């Protein structure tokens, strides 16, 4: 599994990285634009991401906008549904408006910080990924 973690806060990035590293290759983006760049680069290399974990509230391009642009790029590339990156939004906010906006921007799941390892892995399993530690 190839994963892109996007969060402007480096502590949150590192916690997610520590949780997910045993289960796949993890790249990190510190903002929305870096996430878009990484997303495109991965496609150019023919090794797109399977999963993106993106923080909602980031300066500049927030998580909603980042994911909307990723979905627009996938549409431009005419990617079928099963080839699109799965997205999990992460936020410190339980605000229902945020959850609705996340769904509208095209995410498959929404997690409230603190990110619980088992909850995150359950969500990833729900997305039909095989979750097993890399030896």
């Amino acid at each position, binding site marked *: 599994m190839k994963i892109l973690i996007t969060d402007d*806060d480096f502590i*949150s990035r590192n916690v997610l990285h520590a949780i997910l590293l045993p289960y796949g290759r993890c790249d990190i983006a510190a903002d929305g634009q870096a996430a878009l760049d990484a997303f495109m680069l991965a496609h150019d290399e023919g090794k797109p991401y399977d999963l993106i974990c993106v923080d909602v509230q980031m300066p500049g391009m927030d998580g909603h906008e980042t994911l909307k642009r990723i979905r627009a790029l996938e549409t431009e590339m005419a990617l079928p549904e099963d080839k699109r990156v799965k997205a999990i939004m992460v936020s*410190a906010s339980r605000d229902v408006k945020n959850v609705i906006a996340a769904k509208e921007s095209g995410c498959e799941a929404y997690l409230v910080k603190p990110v619980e390892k088992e909850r995150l892995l359950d969500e990833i399993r729900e997305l039909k990924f095989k979750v097993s530690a890399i030896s």
Partner: protein
Amino acid sequence: MREREMGMGRSIRPAGLAAGGCGTRVFNEEDFLRNLGGDRDLVRTIVTMFLDDAPSGMECLKEAVDRNDAAEMRRLAHKMKGAAANIRAEALAHIEDNGSRRDMTGAASLFEATRRELERFRDLFTEKTDRARDDERGDAGPGNISG
């Protein structure tokens, strides 16, 4: 160098339990440790990174308060809340719940509460780290040293 409340008396409460009670802890180390697969070194590393970064975050928060920049203040407080929640600095993560608002009302008290909780978290973490180090030394104490 970090600030310290020199000479100020502190209330006494069970170690790790936040002022607000309701089961919110200053640092839920067990939970964080479990979330990171029991890797105690990783817990220490990430918390140390958080504490190293905190003074500049507080400085930015203070500047936003001084500028009456409510939007920036909320953004920074939200960011700190997210990071604090992830490392299980529960009391610190809980502060914004009482201080999130669209204007600057209460900004100074929000800043002060954040500063105070951050210091309590730092003190508790330092105490735990020192104690763990002492324990490790104890394990490798004179009785275990040969020669």
